[in-house]
């Protein structure tokens, strides 16, 4: 992992982001709601990390604490060796929060310039506009933009500070597929400048495709943390599907190379740590099995397995 030296800060233990033992509760109608219950993450400078989890998992609360918007009940946050408030005050952090529209009565260019003026060493306004792909709408008033355009302006606002750490909370929620693709192209270009990027998402394919590493969060705690390939490997790596009526699930589960089995009407779905062994055993014992498919498990399946949410292990493979 690349560890870069920041102004005056020697490369090493301070050139990273650390969340230690974070806890946060909110008052709810039925007593306190424990939104975050013990999150420990260390992110190296230059990494792109996805905080992945369903809605209500505690991602936004964690991000608010990372940005210093919310004080943790317990635990600590360190951004490049500094408290978040100091890193923010020094202009080292850029963020795109989950909720948010734009203030009105300014052109896109004026708004980005207004925000750039707050930072010690911002990007050029034109550069930020082009990075975010909004050069053509720069003279439009902020209150007259579409949802997708607004989102790109918010991105330009986050980028113009030229931050060391860029934090994005569900940045592509309002975007269509094409805009989402364009968004991540921009993000990759920004990451290539050696920036650290932390983004929250519940789009599994986003974490899979764009993050070096995924931190899976459910019910306020981390359920897995590693490269997306490793997370997939942690769970049954392949899914075997076949049409096979009249065979008991228990029998199938007992086959070599199979860790779990499920029946869906006439079809069966087997979770296979060793799919080669499983297919041989299946055809040996049940030669009438047909329509056989073997597929690698997506991150979504891994996610459902790890968090224990959702009923079917194979739901994620539909896409």
């Amino acid at each position, binding site marked *: 992992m690349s560890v870069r030296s920041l102004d005056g800060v020697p490369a090493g233990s301070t050139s990273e982001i650390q969340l230690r033992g974070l806890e946060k509760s909110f008052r709810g109608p039925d007593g306190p709601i424990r939104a975050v219950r013990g999150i420990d993450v260390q992110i190296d400078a230059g990494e792109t990390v996805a905080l992945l989890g369903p809605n209500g998992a505690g991602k936004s609360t964690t991000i608010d604490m990372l940005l*210093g*918007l919310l004080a943790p009940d317990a635990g600590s946050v360190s951004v490049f060796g500094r408290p978040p408030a100091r890193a923010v005050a020094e202009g080292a952090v850029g963020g795109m929060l989950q909720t948010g529209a*734009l*203030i009105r009565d*300014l052109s896109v260019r004026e708004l980005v310039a*207004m*925000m750039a003026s707050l930072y010690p060493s911002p990007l050029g306004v034109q550069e930020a506009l082009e990075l975010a792909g909004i050069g053509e709408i720069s003279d439009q008033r902020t209150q007259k933009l579409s949802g997708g355009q607004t989102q790109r302006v918010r991105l330009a606002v986050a980028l113009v500070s030229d931050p060391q750490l860029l934090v994005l909370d569900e940045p592509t929620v309002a975007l269509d597929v094409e805009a989402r693709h364009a968004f991540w192209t921009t993000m990759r270009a920004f990451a290539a400048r050696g920036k650290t990027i932390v983004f929250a998402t519940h789009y599994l394919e986003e974490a899979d495709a764009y993050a070096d590493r995924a931190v899976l969060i459910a019910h306020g705690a981390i359920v897995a943390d590693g490269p997306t390939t490793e997370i997939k490997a942690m769970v049954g790596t392949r899914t075997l599907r076949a049409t096979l009526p009249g065979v008991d699930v228990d029998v199938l589960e007992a086959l070599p190379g199979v860790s779990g089995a499920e029946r869906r009407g006439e079809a069966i779905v087997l979770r296979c740590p060793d799919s080669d062994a499983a297919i041989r055993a299946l055809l040996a014992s049940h030669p009438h099995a047909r329509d056989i498919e073997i597929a690698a498990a997506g991150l979504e399946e891994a996610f459902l397995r790890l968090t224990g949410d959702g009923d079917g292990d194979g739901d994620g493979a539909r896409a």
Partner: protein
Amino acid sequence: MPLAYTRYELLRTLRNRRFFLFSLGFPLILYFAIVSPYRHVRDFDGSGISLPLYYMVGLASFGTMNAMLSSGVRIAAERAVGWNRQLRITPLSPRAYFRVKVLTGYMVALISLLALYAAGTSLGVSLSAGEWLKMTGLILLGLVPFAALGIALGHMLTPDSIGPALGGGISLLALLGGVWFPLGSHGFLHDLAQYIPSYWLVRASHVELGGASWNTMGWAVMIAWTIALGLLAARAYRRDTGRV
């Protein structure tokens, strides 16, 4: 002081129609409508002050109160769209944020004030340079509690509720302050008005009579309101942002 940020904030405000209507258009139209027929009245309703001057300061108080309190409308709107959270992850400190809001409010108030001065002069208001300066100084000082009130309301109310709240509040403050007619020298309304900050704002017109426009009571009331509303604004901000 984030000057560039303040410049854009002022630009936004000047592009807003509400500003022109309440801080500038409304007071100017009323001024000409009320004063034109009575421009030669030298002693308005026993106040000892000429009618063009009385209403010039009265309506300037109305316009500048609006200008200062409209920072609350902008704060409420910024909160509603999450912009204040966006600002909290920039190097702009809360103090600097408030300085921007107050300074913008004052610049808008100054525009409103100068427009009323021009209108007043066109209808015969004539003061010495020293009187103009003293009156302007008193009005600008008298707006301090309104700056704090704008910030407090901006953090307590929603964009939907702040409009009616300010509309009603400013009407009441204008009435009790004597914007529409002098409150006399005794009686319930006069006694009550002594405790209202807008009363002392309107009293800035007393420069024409010579002497101190604000007596000890005036200074004490203004300082008390400034402290009370300043504390309220700080509290509202902390509650709103969850800061300790």
